[in-house]
């Protein structure tokens, strides 16, 4: 039994699993309230146009229809806001909750129907007839800017960052390398579509929103502001969440619409997105075009990088503002020593579904760009890609390594790492030298096989703060209330392990509450690989406080000094006899109850809330190595082997870390080889089903090896942890591209993701 100290670092089974394998989960569609109405959104079928009129008469009279709204009905609600970066001037590009005179992408909400059942609502939505005059579409983010509206450019901002003397570095360079690269449009696409169920509790004067995820407290504050209610009159609830990956839990038009309707119509309102809607309406991500130049010395050492990229934001600025472009600009330099750097990220509006974050936002893209660049430099100088990287990796003696850049409003300081050490361990793990021999022999026999790698630095643990409150009740039960959320990654188990380690209780006895604004006043949610770092550290601090309180309370009762005592097996025990429980935590809690004489004049309860603050992110790092075989007949890329080596500082639950990596790799393979939101020349989306938008199945998954290392604990938090959520996906595009190059025997052949069979077939037979 894992009852005490030592549960951190162990691959214990998850607390989350029991209801999920029994079908007892509570996902958005499983939430129902008596007398609820169904909402259906009518969406634009035109990519760009003037919305002249909307005929709702036929829909309104369909039996079972309660209301049909267009923009005029919601004109008092401001557009959906965003979390700001330093960039100014994005506000006029935000999305109204229903289109106002102009439609800007196929899928844009233009009307909503409320009806007694979802079937009737969908019937009625088909009867809504908009009249739209087509306008010219913008589909290429790199085209010259045009007008978003009179006097407003489709380029509202350019993200610029710079350090060192870039021009001087290029003037003095031994050589320069220039590449044109692009990453396609793809996204998180969780298996559960979005859902939102709103209910107004008139007795309490509280508006409830269910089916929420990720960022409940920010969303609560914004919903309250937009609907002109006090924040404590709005509460968000999280049940089970069917995958997040960045896209779920942001504030979307539909969230506001159900809230508004619940208030106005006086009945609960339920909206469940269908898959086609999801492909049209939920955030897209990734699409960028890059022009990148490197200045190098004769040994292949980087002197400067000068990068320009065009970020396809789609039709509106959404809740992330320009964060993906900001992260791309900040994270492009990666793990390499870089004396000078200049980047200009052109943030462009187009007539596609709006974009925001998807797992490893800005890093999947720029790792592909940077590692393509490193491979090109190696090829130019006739060096091995390994040797070229060794010459440029930041050494562990240079840690912490400040980089004169900011990312998400924090200064970038690479906190710890042994990059070259991890590269060596990865090469040994996959047997790189023997692999090269095997690949040469197979190529000599006519197979088109190759190997490649991508090295990257991730970021995690975004602050500024998170809090946790732990309470032990009079039965010894432990409740942990966190401002974090869960998107299915195992938050409950990880926080319970961290608390159990200090409290000396079985981790299964800890109930973890998350994603509820009614249980804790503040929270920063689950995103940016931050929960284990931020909420995990807060958990550690709160558990330490409880431990100190329990020992201080028990000591006089046991006629001992607190420092002679410890917690083990749910009991207070002497340090020198930890196996003998002297007083249970339940008894301690009773002594601290409101009726206890010990507590007269004090705040009762064995309960503590603690906050962890951080103004710097922590930076995990990793290397991916791929082995691929190309099919000469079809151009298909078969991934035979895949290794991820990733340093997370400290793994709270290695099984869960490996699970995060494996899932990330599969998604990365999707983005590298299969997934793309395509549009025709008029802006009609061509990838609106799972038959067109190809998510990898088990058949596409290679033999995967995951090497989790703990060489470089973070000095920025008491546990030494770094986030594990995004290292599995970050380097996949880079590693696969390098491996395909190698199999083709043509360095630099791959310049775009996804690498489609037609491209490979063309290169094989060029």
């Amino acid at each position, binding site marked *: 039994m894992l009852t005490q100290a030592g549960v951190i670092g162990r*691959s214990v*089974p*998850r607390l*989350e*699993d*029991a209801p*999920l*394998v*029994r*079908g*007892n*989960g509570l*996902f958005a*569609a*499983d939430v129902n309230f008596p007398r609820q109405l169904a909402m259906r959104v009518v969406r634009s079928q035109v990519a760009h146009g003037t919305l002249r009129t909307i005929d709702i008469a036929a829909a309104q009279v369909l039996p079972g229809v309660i209301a049909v709204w267009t923009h005029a009905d919601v004109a008092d609600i401001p557009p959906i806001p965003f979390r700001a970066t330093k960039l100014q001037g994005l506000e006029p590009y935000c999305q109204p909750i229903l289109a106002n005179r102009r439609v800007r992408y196929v899928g844009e909400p233009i009307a909503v129907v409320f009806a007694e059942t979802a*079937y009737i609502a969908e019937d009625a939505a088909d009867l809504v007839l908009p009249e739209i005059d087509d306008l010219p579409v913008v589909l290429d983010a790199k085209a010259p800017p045009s007008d978003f509206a009179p006097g407003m450019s489709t380029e509202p901002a350019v993200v610029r960052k710079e350090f060192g003397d870039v021009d001087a570095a290029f003037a003095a360079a031994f050589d320069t390398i220039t590449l044109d690269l692009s990453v396609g449009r793809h996204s*998180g*696409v*969780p*298996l*559960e*579509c979005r859902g939102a169920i709103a209910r107004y509790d008139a007795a309490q004067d509280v508006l409830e929103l269910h089916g929420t995820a990720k960022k409940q407290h920010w969303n609560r504050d914004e919903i309250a502001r937009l609907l002109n209610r006090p924040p404590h009159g709005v509460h968000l609830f999280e049940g*089970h*969440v*069917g*995958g*997040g*990956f960045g896209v779920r839990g942001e504030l979307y038009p539909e969230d506001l619409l159900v809230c508004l309707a619940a208030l106005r119509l006086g009945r609960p309102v339920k909206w*469940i997105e*269908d*898959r086609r809607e999801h492909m049209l309406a939920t955030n897209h991500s990734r699409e960028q075009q890059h022009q990148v130049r490197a200045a190098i010395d004769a040994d292949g050492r980087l002197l400067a990088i000068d990068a320009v990229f065009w970020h396809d934001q789609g039709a509106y600025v959404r809740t992330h503002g320009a964060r993906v472009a900001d992260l791309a600009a900040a994270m492009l330099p990666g793990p390499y020593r870089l004396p000078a750097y200049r980047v200009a990220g052109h943030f462009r509006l187009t007539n596609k579904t709006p974009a925001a974050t998807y797992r490893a936002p800005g890093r999947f893209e720029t790792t592909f760009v940077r590692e393509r660049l490193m491979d090109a430099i190696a090829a130019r100088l006739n060096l091995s890609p390994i040797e070229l990287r060794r010459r440029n990796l930041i050494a562990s003696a240079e840690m912490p390594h400040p980089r004169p850049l900011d990312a998400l409003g924090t200064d970038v300081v690479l906190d710890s790492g042994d990059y070259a050490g991890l590269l060596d361990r990865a090469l040994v793990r996959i047997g790189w030298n023997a692999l090269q021999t095997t690949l040469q022999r197979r190529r000599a026999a006519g197979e088109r096989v190759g190997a490649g790698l991508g090295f990257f630095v991730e970021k995690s643990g975004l602050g500024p703060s998170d809090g946790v409150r732990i309470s032990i009740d009079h039965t010894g039960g432990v409740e942990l209330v966190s401002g974090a959320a869960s*998107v*299915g*990654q*195992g938050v409950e188990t990880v926080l319970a392990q961290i608390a159990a380690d200090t409290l000396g209780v079985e981790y299964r006895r800890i109930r973890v509450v998350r994603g509820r604004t009614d249980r804790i006043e503040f929270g920063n949610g689950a995103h940016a690989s931050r929960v284990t770092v931020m909420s995990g550290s807060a958990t550690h601090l709160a558990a330490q406080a409880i431990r100190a309180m329990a020992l201080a309370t028990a000591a006089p009762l046991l006629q001992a000094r607190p420092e002679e005592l410890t917690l083990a097996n749910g009991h207070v025990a002497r340090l020198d006899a930890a196996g003998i429980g002297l007083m249970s935590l339940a008894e301690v809690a009773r002594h601290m109850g409101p009726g206890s004489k010990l507590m007269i004049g004090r705040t009762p309860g064995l309960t503590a809330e603690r906050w962890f603050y951080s103004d710097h992110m922590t930076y995990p790092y990793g290397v991916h190595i791929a082995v691929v075989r190309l099919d000469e007949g079809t151009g298909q890329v078969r991934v035979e082997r895949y290794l991820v080596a990733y340093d997370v500082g400290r793994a709270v639950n290695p*099984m*869960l870390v*490996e*699970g995060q990596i*494996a*899932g*990330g*790799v*599969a*998604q990365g393979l999707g983005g590298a080889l299969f997934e793309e939101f395509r549009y025709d020349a008029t802006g009609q989306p061509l990838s609106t*089903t*799972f*038959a067109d938008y190809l*998510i990898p*199945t*088990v*058949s596409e*998954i290679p033999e*995967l090896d995951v090497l989790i290392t703990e060489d470089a604990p973070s000095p920025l938090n008491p546990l030494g942890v770094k986030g594990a959520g995004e290292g*599995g996906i970050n380097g996949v595009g880079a590693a696969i591209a390098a491996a395909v190059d190698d199999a083709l025997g043509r360095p630099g052949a791959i310049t775009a993701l996804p690498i489609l069979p037609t491209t490979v077939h063309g290169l094989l037979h060029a």
Partner: protein
Amino acid sequence: MPDHHTITLLLNGIPHTIAVEPRRTLIDAIREDCGATGTHTGCEHGVCGACTVLLDGEPIRSCLMFAVQADNRQIRTVEGLADGATLHRMQQAFIDHHALQCGYCTPGFLMLAVSLLEANPNITDDALRDGLSSNLCRCTGYVNILRAVRAVAAELRA
């Protein structure tokens, strides 16, 4: 409700007599009319397999079938796997091998995996992989799903 049909779904051995429109999908009937929300809707066009249930023992996409087509037929869903407090060995294997993260695809995968092994306990590894490739998971990368199902297959062969 003149256009409603009265049908009986034999859901995990229990008859549910319900009145449905002819166009009502089987998954909606199972979830909304019978209250068994363990089966999930993932795409409504028959690709992802989240809605997989066993109809007279065969795995089917319950989003692609009308409820009236399942009248008086045996339907097994995830709620029917465990025997009281005792989990089905496939459920236990999914927990032991960390074969689920968000858990949304899990009921569909459990039903698919159970049916593959019930149909052929000596299924080859290639056929197992091929069978499992009919459902989508976005969290796990499938590695641990494959491990869990292989472990149960090995137990059955032992």
